[in-house]
């Protein structure tokens, strides 16, 4: 808190004493942060609580008998008997396999989609060719189509190709493009000055060379950020991976979590196990924030600018 106060004061304005209004405003902001973060704390707290203690150990900030058993049984490190004894349903998450699948899924989409859409966005922003505006108009129109509408026939297509349960099927609809990425990258290329490319053109570089040797290296930072946001979206995908890759060897983390929940009895859900699974699923996100938090936050500034 003291830190953020300093950051605020680093703006040119003079550091002010805390007036009652400002104190109240800070209190509200801190309350918002608590409401935002406390549920995650409670998730961890529950995951560390023995299932048998849940009805009695209700509101203490730290469990009376903290344990790692829930993580162990979710990861399949315990025997089924031990799992059942600790309140489980015998189901495991196969966390590492799902983690691997999620990384492949999100990584492949983020990398390939950003690259291909950068090419297309660049063409729309810089190149002159017949039918450009019409084609771009069609892409923009596609932004309006809700994903479920294309999801149904796409599922039928992927099914008829025999791609259910394969990474080809998982990534197919988004690996080459999404209209949003094309739209967004076009705006991005429009916003950067063309002088450097023009200089390269004077040196005799063709369009492909300009793109590959000048534009891409120059825009590495923003493109990485866009790839990062694409990866976050892909990481969060649920319905499509659940439909196309439900089997163990292609099951991504979100789908695994959903299936793990279905295996837990409705009447008496295995809350401690579920929260342990949720904690495991949130860890990659936490790492992402630690490494790229500033970048992500700052990217929201420039996505805001049209």
């Amino acid at each position: 808190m003291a830190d953020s106060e300093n950051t605020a004061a680093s703006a040119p304005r003079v550091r002010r004493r805390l007036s009652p209004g400002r104190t109240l405003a800070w209190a509200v902001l801190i309350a918002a942060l608590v409401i935002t973060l406390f549920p995650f704390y409670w998730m961890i707290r529950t995951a560390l609580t023995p299932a048998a203690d849940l009805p009695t150990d209700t509101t203490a900030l730290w469990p009376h008998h903290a344990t790692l058993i829930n993580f162990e049984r979710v990861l399949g490190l315990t025997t089924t008997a031990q799992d059942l004894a600790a309140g489980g349903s015998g189901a495991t998450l196969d966390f590492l396999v799902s983690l691997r699948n999620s990384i492949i899924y999100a990584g492949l989409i983020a990398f390939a989609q950003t690259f291909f859409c950068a090419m297309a966005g660049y063409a729309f922003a810089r190149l002159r060719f017949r039918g450009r505006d019409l084609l771009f108009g069609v892409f923009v129109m596609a932004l309006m189509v809700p994903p479920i509408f294309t999801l149904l026939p796409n599922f039928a297509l992927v099914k008829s190709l025999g791609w259910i349960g394969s990474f080809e099927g998982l990534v197919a609809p988004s690996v080459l493009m999404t209209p949003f990425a094309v739209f967004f990258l076009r705006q991005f290329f429009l916003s950067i000055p063309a002088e450097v490319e023009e200089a390269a053109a004077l040196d005799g570089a063709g369009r492909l060379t300009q793109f590959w040797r000048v534009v891409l290296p120059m825009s590495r930072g923003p493109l990485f950020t866009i790839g990062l946001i694409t990866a976050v979206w892909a990481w969060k995908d649920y319905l499509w991976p659940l439909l196309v890759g439900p089997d163990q060897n292609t099951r991504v983390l979100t789908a695994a979590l959903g299936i793990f929940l279905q295996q837990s009895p409705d009447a008496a859900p295995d809350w401690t196990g579920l929260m342990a699974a949720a904690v495991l699923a949130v860890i990659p996100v936490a790492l992402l924030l630690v490494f790229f938090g500033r970048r992500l936050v700052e990217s929201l500034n420039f996505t805001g600018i049209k």
Partner: protein
Amino acid sequence: MAEISGPVGGVALAARNRPRGTSAGAARRRRGSGARRGDGRVAWVFLAPALLGFALFYLYPTVRGAYFSFTDYDLLSPPHSVGAANYRALWHDPLYWNALRVTLQYVVINIVSQTVLALGLAWLMFRLTRSVLIRVLLLVPWLVPNVAVGLLWLWLLDANLGFVNHLITAAGGSSQGFFTTPALAMPAIAMINTWQYTGYTALLLYAGMLQIPSSLYESARLDGAGEIRTFTRITLPLMRPILALVLIVSVIGSFQIFDTISITPTHGGPVNATRAIYYYIYQLAFTQFRMGYACAVAMTLVLILGVLTFLQMRLLRASRSDLA
């Protein structure tokens, strides 16, 4: 290659590049002065992957989805045309109208609460701090997969052991079965998503606030305008374009509520109270295998969202800025 860094690497690259560059330049010169006017052929090289993806997974399914909506397709046997029967059926389908009604209920609760809270939060940040840490922390729920967020709140709102009910009983109230009471289920789901997306929305709006020239605030202060007046007379009007954009995108997103509903144990219940349109389409297609009918319902959703977006653009005059 990676060891070569700095100017040396640059020179190496440039040298390696020379031949290809010159030949392209020569080709352009051969085509004469008109070369700069068109990049016809090379443009299609740039566009090829995106075009392929667009044709296969956007255009083709759009046409096919429209076609399926006039058939009895069930994913297993080839589709047969049934004319407009699906559309007639949905006109008389109480579950369809119910789905639209509960979706609308969700959208209203979610969008109103989320926008108001996000605006307030953005304003607080704008007036108090430029801290990156606070912004990162506010972004956390957005980064977490919806399924994990839904699971977490399923637990927090649990009728017997959930933390929220501990709070309610501690405050003298009685425990609520949030997901089993029809009147509470959809508002609960809406609040979960408001919780998840308020920070993200606030950051977008905050970015919009930063774009307003500070000179305007200074003159407002000189004129003796207070906090509230400054907000309503300067901030709000001047960030209208970005607010409009954020609203349009949030409303479209809000109509697509699915993940949270799909993990609640009531599967659209209690008594259809949470069977929103996306979830209804999903159930029609993948649990009842009525793909044709599902496509017809999805077609109507396309139309509804199209009209809604158009209306919002007109009402909010999204594309015009007052700052210019």
